[in-house]
């Protein structure tokens, strides 16, 4: 069906004529079980459940990893366990920016050569790594710890937004660059932050979203192309 037809029918339905069904008692729809059905016994199932909680690991992968570990040599498993214990023991989060750190402050916050006037706001520590790879940015970072996503129960208070605002309070910072992901949650978070910071005398900028380098223009989708148009800049002269 074409867009125009779809939009037309939607308009007819909203606000459309209304017939009222009879109210009924709530049914007993219960939460769908989150836990994978316990196919295995005790320890094996516990391991599968734990692995299944990791990001990007589905039930099948969890099962595959669990059986790989069961079949592996003891010293191989010990290396993995040691690495996990060590990372939790040694690595923590920077008290200032929320990046991963091995001391009170992360490498970037502790570096006196970096500018205190610009803060780049990102969702995750891995975004710091991605931006550092560009070697374009010489300011400081602030890691939010995610993006606002009400369906997953993540609101502004669950992110390190209060900490960001207190870093902006003393007037040193002149510009905040918002580098949240270019998706719905990242954009909404950027909207929220720019409204919040907009009350202060600080320049707020958003990372330009545009065309992937190395691609053909004709292959760009209309959303990306539209954004690239909006983020265009003057060249020459």
């Amino acid at each position: 069906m074409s867009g125009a037809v779809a939009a037309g029918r939607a308009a007819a339905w909203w606000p459309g004529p209304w017939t009222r069904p009879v109210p009924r008692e709530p049914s007993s729809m219960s939460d769908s079980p989150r836990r994978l059905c316990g196919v295995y016994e005790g320890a094996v199932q516990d391991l599968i459940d734990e692995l299944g909680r990791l990001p990007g690991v589905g039930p099948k992968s969890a099962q595959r990893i669990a059986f790989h570990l069961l079949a592996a040599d003891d010293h191989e498993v010990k290396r993995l366990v040691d690495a996990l214990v060590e990372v939790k023991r040694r690595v923590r989060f920077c008290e200032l920016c929320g990046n991963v750190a091995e001391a009170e402050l992360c490498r970037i916050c502790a570096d006196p050569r970096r500018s205190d006037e610009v803060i780049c706001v990102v969702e995750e520590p891995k975004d710091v790594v991605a931006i550092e790879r560009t070697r374009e940015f010489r300011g400081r970072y602030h890691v939010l710890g995610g993006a606002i996503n009400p369906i997953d129960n993540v609101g502004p208070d669950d992110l390190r937004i209060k900490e960001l605002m207190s870093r902006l309070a003393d007037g040193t910072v002149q510009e905040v660059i918002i580098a949240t992901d270019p998706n719905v949650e990242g954009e909404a978070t950027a909207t929220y932050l720019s409204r919040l910071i907009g009350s202060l005398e600080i320049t707020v900028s958003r990372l330009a979203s545009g065309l992937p380098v190395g691609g053909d223009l004709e292959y760009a989708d209309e959303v990306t192309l539209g954004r690239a148009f909006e983020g265009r800049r003057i060249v020459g002269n």
Partner: protein
Amino acid sequence: MPLYRDDAIVLRTQKLGEADRIVTFLTRERGKVRAVGRGVRRTSSRFGARLEPFMAVDVQFHTGRTLDTVTQVETVGAYARRVCEDYELYTAGTAMLEAADRLVDQEHEPAVQQYWLLAGGLRALAERHHAAGLVLDSYLLRALAVAGWALSPIDCARCGEPGPHHAFNVAAGGAVCPRCRPPGSPSPAPETFTLLAALLSGDWSTADTASTRHRNEASGLVAAYSQYYLERTLRSLRMVERS
């Protein structure tokens, strides 16, 4: 049927593996469909931008053994962008998507009315036809009514005694007459009952002129009503911003 095509609204997405997403759609003909969008998180993805929550799309699916796969996507309504540019619209819109996801419980079971209701609601939200909070409340009341839980804003929800009445009871289903009124039922302002009726019937000229006080009172009742009949908290409802 290895391939099928449908109009759909993206309700939510979840990361899968390195670069994929599981996308939950509310489709026009097949109700809820969950499908994999392969590689859509890569910045080079040809349709990642179209598989975002709030997008109204025309999708082609490939039937898989466990999950179907998205093979083509065209944009029908690019609401995501406009919704995200305004935090009030974003929080109201997210609550609408979450409610739709709850109300359409079963996959591949047609829910045509729910589809058109959500499509119209998101369009009204994105194009700012009315205040975001009013669109949300109207959507919730109508979506619940389609699901079989229609609020009775004027006549007594228990015995049908013609109203208006003074008391409101969530468990009874709306307005209650003095005889049916369970103890402890609140008594909202008469204008709030009028607003609830307007939101349910789509009488926007009445709804748009309601005062802030009555809007707030109505949205509190709609929230309580929604939570009761959905039997679970709508997580995004507590984050809805209202100006």
